[in-house]
């Protein structure tokens, strides 16, 4: 889907990253698995070699400058010992259905799968199950851009969730990817695969968070508590016929983090996919969200909230590629931008000729809270089918002075009035987070970081 035009540049940087990929351990995972993973890696490696780290000259990266990334030399993350304390990140709703990866490595000690009923699979790549996964892992349509190709070329392990036919899973599954930023810049490349077979239903929470390093740092470097780290994540979700996947994606990386994530979803006939993506952390973050419709009558609901401040940059590029009739798509993307932060949104909806009777709506709303805050947004429709209903809208504004005045006239001070309005703006999305405790956490974060 994402085409890249950059000529080959920064060759050294990418091959260095490629060099850093963990080797496949035959003893731990078995020869057959190694062979299979190696085959997947080998398919992607040449793609990485062909491509370059995009620059602002690439249309898809016009507003997201990665030059600060190129200044950092990342080394592969290593398994940490002792393991970090994740108690603050545990969701009570998913207390016994949680997979934890620390710096990209599966941490069975921190995970808990006791609550996963039989027949449902939630775990990391596991030899016995591989035949089932062959058709799904790294098989999603759409071209590979450099970061997802790099992830695939470095594929070592993955969080896998498999819901069998007609099974509705009550408990949500929490996929937690924790980074423990250390003294040196590290890179980790998490991978998720979610397969919901026909008629099934599941809620998946994918979360990227930072945890203090379990061992105190020997010295603090120039006011910076942790070194930078890069998370390059890829998630593939297969929604079978009549299946329903509710997906919450929380990005709460550390202040010095770079986060590049891709979520690709294939939606079969009459399936429903709901996504709630929240981006709060990272110095530079980019989320590519790609939906491919593989059958008619699908329903796609995308909600997203980005709240950034300081010098943060948060970029979301979404594509909804319809190709069958009777599809419905609803997208609401909201950004709250403070200080000198910079939000980027590009939302594509493709409605080719076969996608007759599509009903698509897209709304991008941005709140700029400070004089230096900046937003670049581009809702984009490409339509060939004539019997469709498509609309998009975009607004950018600051807080209404009238509204602040009204609240002040009711006895609120200016700051409380502003915060109340900012919360109200965020609530539309926060309320759609499927898990109550998470909803609370996020709403607290939004509230506790007033942007002035």
């Amino acid at each position, binding site marked *: 889907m994402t085409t890249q035009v950059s000529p080959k540049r920064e060759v050294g940087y990418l091959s260095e990253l490629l060099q850093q990929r963990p080797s496949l351990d035959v003893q731990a995972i078995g020869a057959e698995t190694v062979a299979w993973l190696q085959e997947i890696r080998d398919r992607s490696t040449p793609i990485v070699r062909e491509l370059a780290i995009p620059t602002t000259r690439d249309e898809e990266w016009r507003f997201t400058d990665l030059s600060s990334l190129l200044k950092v030399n990342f080394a592969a993350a290593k398994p940490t010992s002792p393991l970090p304390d994740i108690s603050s990140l545990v969701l009570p709703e998913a207390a016994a259905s949680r997979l934890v990866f620390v710096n990209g490595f599966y941490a069975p000690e921190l995970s808990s799968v006791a609550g996963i009923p039989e027949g449902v699979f939630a775990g990391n790549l596991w030899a016995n199950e591989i035949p089932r996964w062959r058709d799904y892992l790294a098989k999603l349509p759409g071209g590979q851009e450099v970061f997802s190709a790099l992830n695939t070329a470095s594929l070592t392990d993955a969080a896998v969730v498999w819901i069998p036919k007609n099974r509705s899973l009550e408990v949500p599954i929490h996929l937690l990817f924790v980074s423990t930023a250390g003294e040196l810049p590290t890179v980790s490349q998490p991978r998720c695969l979610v397969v919901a077979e026909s008629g099934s239903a599941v809620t998946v929470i994918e979360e990227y968070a930072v945890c203090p390093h379990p061992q105190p740092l020997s010295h603090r470097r120039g006011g910076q508590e942790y070194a930078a780290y890069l998370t390059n994540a890829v998630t593939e979700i297969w929604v079978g016929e009549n299946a329903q996947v509710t997906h919450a994606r929380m990005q709460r990386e550390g202040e010095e983090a770079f986060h590049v994530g891709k979520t690709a979803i294939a939606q079969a006939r009459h399936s429903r996919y709901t996504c709630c993506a929240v981006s709060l952390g990272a110095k530079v973050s980019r989320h590519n969200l790609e939906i491919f419709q593989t059958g008619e009558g699908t329903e796609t609901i995308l909600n997203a909230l980005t709240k950034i401040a300081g010098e943060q940059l948060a970029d979301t590029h979404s594509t909804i590629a319809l190709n069958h009739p009777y599809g419905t798509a609803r997208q609401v993307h909201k950004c709250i931008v403070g200080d000198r932060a910079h939000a980027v949104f590009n939302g594509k909806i493709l409605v080719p000729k076969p996608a007759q009777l599509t009903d698509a709506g897209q709304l991008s709303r941005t709140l700029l809270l400070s004089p230096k805050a900046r937003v670049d947004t581009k809702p984009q429709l490409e339509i*060939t089918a004539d019997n469709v209903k498509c609309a998009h809208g975009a607004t950018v504004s600051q807080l209404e002075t009238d509204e602040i005045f009204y609240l002040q006239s009711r006895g609120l001070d200016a700051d409380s009035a502003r915060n109340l309005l900012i919360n109200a703006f965020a609530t539309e999305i926060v309320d759609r987070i499927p898990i109550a405790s998470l909803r609370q956490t996020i709403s607290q974060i939004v509230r506790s970081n007033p942007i002035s």
Partner: protein
Amino acid sequence: MSAAVKTLVNQPYKYGFVTTIETDTIPRGLNEDVIRLISSKKNEPEFMLEFRLRAYRHWLKMTEPTWPHVTYPAIDYQDIIYYSAPKQKAKKNSLDEVDPALLETFEKLGIPLSEQKRLTNVAVDAIFDSVSIATTFREKLAKEGVIFCSISEALHEYPELVQKYLGSVVPIADNYFAALNSAVFSDGSFVYIPKGVKCPMELSTYFRINSGDTGQFERTLIVAEEGSHVSYLEGCTAPMYDSNQLHAAVVELVALDNAEIKYSTVQNWYAGDENGKGGIYNFVTKRGLCQGVNSKISWTQVETGSAITWKYPSCVLVGDNSVGEFYSVALTNNYQQADTGTKMVHIGKNTRSTIISKGISAGHSKNSYRGLVKMSPKAEGARNYSQCDSMLIGDNAQANTFPYIQVQNHTAKLEHEASTSKIGEDQLFYFTQRGISQEDAVSMMISGFCKDVFNQLPMEFAVEADRLLSLKLEGSVG
């Protein structure tokens, strides 16, 4: 839908005739000598030749843009004739000296140039291939101090004015086609409205491409001094040829304090036949600079012709409280491709802009809206409202929107809306049930769809545009 709509869209192009006339044509190809030749043919001042050569040298270093959502075979720039003019004796002092064949051509196009027949309140500059044939009402305008003439004449008579403003809004290296135009432009209109003058009549330029292998590169420059006001209209037609022709124009508008410029275009170049053969490549750079406080520039365009349209009339809002407006109807049929829209660059405080774009695509055509709204860090209190609606007729047509929104000031306020729909079956049914034929119903609905834009056109042209649209669409709905 019915066959009625199909016949409605597929109206023959009635301006497709060729005028046989003896012409002064230079050999094909482009190099510095050709540019010198054009410059010397027009007997231009020295600074102009330098301007052209500088542009040409820039152009050589540039590459053709590939980002528009259009496809066309590579253009061979050496296979184009860059200058072609009807032969005529010396200088025309009155219309009597203009070749009768030319007058007849313009009469056939509905633009009578002779005194008795002309529209009473519109001054016309008629441009035929590379040169201006005649400019009407010059004396009357001169009384008010308004200068309205071809740009070649302006270069002789008001060189300081031209030198001051030419290239000030669209720099020579602005883009590939603007650079090419700066190097080889042959003629165009020049308008100067002095301080405090409200131009007493509508000004208009009529562009006619006649010759088959020439490219037309015209240049229009409008300067509105403090407190002045002008309304300007351009129209364009071309004969039907099987080959594609390049038309790369540049239009520059400058509005000083409290000035207002209203620029309307009815573009009806030959669009190619129903199989997409022939037609004009319309690669145009239009930009207005609201330099003064409270100035206003308003673009209205009705784009129905051309095989390919690549055109983004823009406003650079520098002066505080300045206003930019863009009203557009773009209609594509058969294999036409349009990638058009606007750029509103807000720089001054409290600048405001409005964008209303209506796209109608029928047949196998592609119609894209591409727009940029940029609020720079200093644009305190800037305001923009954009609305882009598309209507699809038939399921082989394409409608795309690419709105770029870049906001760097938190006090700015911006809204953008877009929708895509087709002509509703139930609406059609309602009309026919009331005894209105399907064809009339479709053309009514389309003119209703475009009303917001047509309302902005000067009266005579609004009627014309409405009719043009229904003619163009004849037979495509059905």
